[in-house]
């Protein structure tokens, strides 16, 4: 009897440290940050309640709008290019390629690197003085110009280039796994119906990749909103504020500009953005899974 009771309690006991850590470090922290976003905290947390004043200030800052616009540009391009490129490469690799085992890891390895390394490499590669532009000049193409990284309007696209380089191979791997999972009998049936290869991909296989598109979207959206390291290493947010993203905005307002209240409110906005994508996704994924 006693032993029975113990056996019932142990599982919950085992789970409790993790649960406690997560309740504190995730959910209590969210509440705390939310509370801070309603206070006049500057360099240190302070508890003078100011309501939604920080949010008002935030939405009036050109700097914040700049970060949001950049996120919109960066996020859209990053997700679209990674998905298209990933699917394209996956389809190419699915054509019974000799040396697939050799090519696939080459496409994928950037995912193993940290964004800091990626940023360091691309920063240099894109630098007109020593990188690609210089190389082209050396090769005698004197009029070649590629100085996006120094250009206020174009710098954000260099972040896209580096981020796509890092993540597209991973999206490719996701699609490839999806393609390989398509039931070959369906394809044989389509071939018997006389469908061309292009039609088979367009009408049958790609529509079946819907769950992969969804997963890729969630992963990439989540990376885009969180991305901080890449910008720091590649451009440091510059030139000027040209490549500032909400993640870097939050960091600099909180820790270098001593505007903790505003930093906290920007963090809350980021949380809302991510959760509005993730929660419906998790809900749709876990509900049918439960019934299995």
């Amino acid at each position, binding site marked *: 009897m006693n032993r029975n009771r113990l056996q019932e309690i*142990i*599982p*919950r006991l*085992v*789970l409790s440290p993790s*649960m406690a850590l*997560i*309740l504190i*470090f*995730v959910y209590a*922290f969210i509440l*705390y*940050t939310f509370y801070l976003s309603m206070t006049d905290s500057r360099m240190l947390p302070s508890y003078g309640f100011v309501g939604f004043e920080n949010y008002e200030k935030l939405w009036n800052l050109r700097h914040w709008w700049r970060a949001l616009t950049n996120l919109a540009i960066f996020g859209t391009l990053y997700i679209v290019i990674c998905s298209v490129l990933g699917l394209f490469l996956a389809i*190419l*690799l*699915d*054509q*019974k390629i000799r040396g697939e085992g050799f*090519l696939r*890891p080459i*496409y*994928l*390895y*950037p995912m*193993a690197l*940290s964004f*800091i*390394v990626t940023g*360091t*490499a*691309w920063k*240099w590669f894109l630098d007109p003085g020593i*990188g690609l532009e*210089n190389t082209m000049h050396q*090769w005698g193409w004197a009029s070649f110009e590629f100085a996006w990284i120094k250009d206020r309007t174009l710098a954000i696209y260099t972040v896209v280039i580096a981020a796509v380089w890092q993540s597209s*191979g*991973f999206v490719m*791997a*996701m699609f490839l796994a999806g393609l390989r999972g398509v039931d*070959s*009998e369906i*394809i*044989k049936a389509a*071939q018997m119906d006389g469908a061309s*290869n292009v039609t*088979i991909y367009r009408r049958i296989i790609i529509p079946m990749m819907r769950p992969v598109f969804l997963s890729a979207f969630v992963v990439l959206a*989540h990376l885009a909103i*969180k991305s*901080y*390291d890449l910008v*720091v290493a590649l451009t440091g947010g510059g030139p000027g504020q040209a490549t500032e993203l909400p993640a870097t905005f939050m*960091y600099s307002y909180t*820790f270098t500009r001593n505007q903790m209240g505003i930093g*906290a409110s920007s*963090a809350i906005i*980021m949380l809302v953005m*991510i959760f509005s994508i993730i929660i419906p*996704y*998790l809900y749709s994924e876990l509900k049918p899974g*439960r019934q299995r």
Partner: protein
Amino acid sequence: MSAGKTVGVSGNRLARALLYSVLIVFAVYYLLPLYVMLVNSVKPLDEIRQGNMLALPDVFTLEPWARAWSSAQIGVQPTGLKPYFFNSILMVVPAVAISTVLGALNGYVLTKWRFRGDDIVFGLILLSCFIPFQIALIPAARILGMLGIAGTTQGLVLIHVVYGLGFTTLFFRNYYAAFPTELVRAAQIDGAGFFQIFRRILLPSSAPIIVVTVIWQFTNIWNDFLFGVSFGDFDSQPMTVALNNLVSSSGGVKEYNVHFAGAILAALPTLVVYIVSGRYFVRGLMAGAVKG
């Protein structure tokens, strides 16, 4: 899986040639930054400045590597990356070990010892994978301060354990969900208790998911920058932060070759893991991406 599949370009030689050229062009795109870093890390500085970034070195030197490792200026001290490399090791090893063990136990409880409300617990844990870490920065700094482990390796280990729990729990839960519950019941009838069942029945069959989890956690924690830069100081800052300091230090001559050697050094552990266990690496990424 794809054995019976015959969709795709076949027969047409021109199309095949085109296909292979496209694939090779992309392979070059993915390899180029790594090649550039590698080639230029063994050139003397003036050769980089004058020469072509794509050219093989005229003069081969390992001096930049030696400098990056042991004498380059990082922040204010000419220590090289060496001490930070060990900081990273000291942080990564315990963080990976603890989060993996906790994740395994959580997954075991959540699948084989289900209780009322366990899906809510899992939902809360799972959601913690997706929070933007910016939301935790301010309160985490306060908590670490209160615990007296601000700026220490222990502090970073704690942070990485907490924010890795969601993923490790997810991995093990999904793996154990497919583990036959009848085995657990048979062991219960045989009189085995909670931990005996885990150690004797589940653990011996868990090698694949342990490998995936360890790789995932290792890469993520090794590559982390945000927590390292926020909560680390000289004795605890990880490799990524040191690399960023090395690259973006403003004073003096920019020693590009040293930067590259440093970047490769920082990337080396995860690249090695990727090369040695690529199959599991991909599985880890996919498991992290494609939910429950």
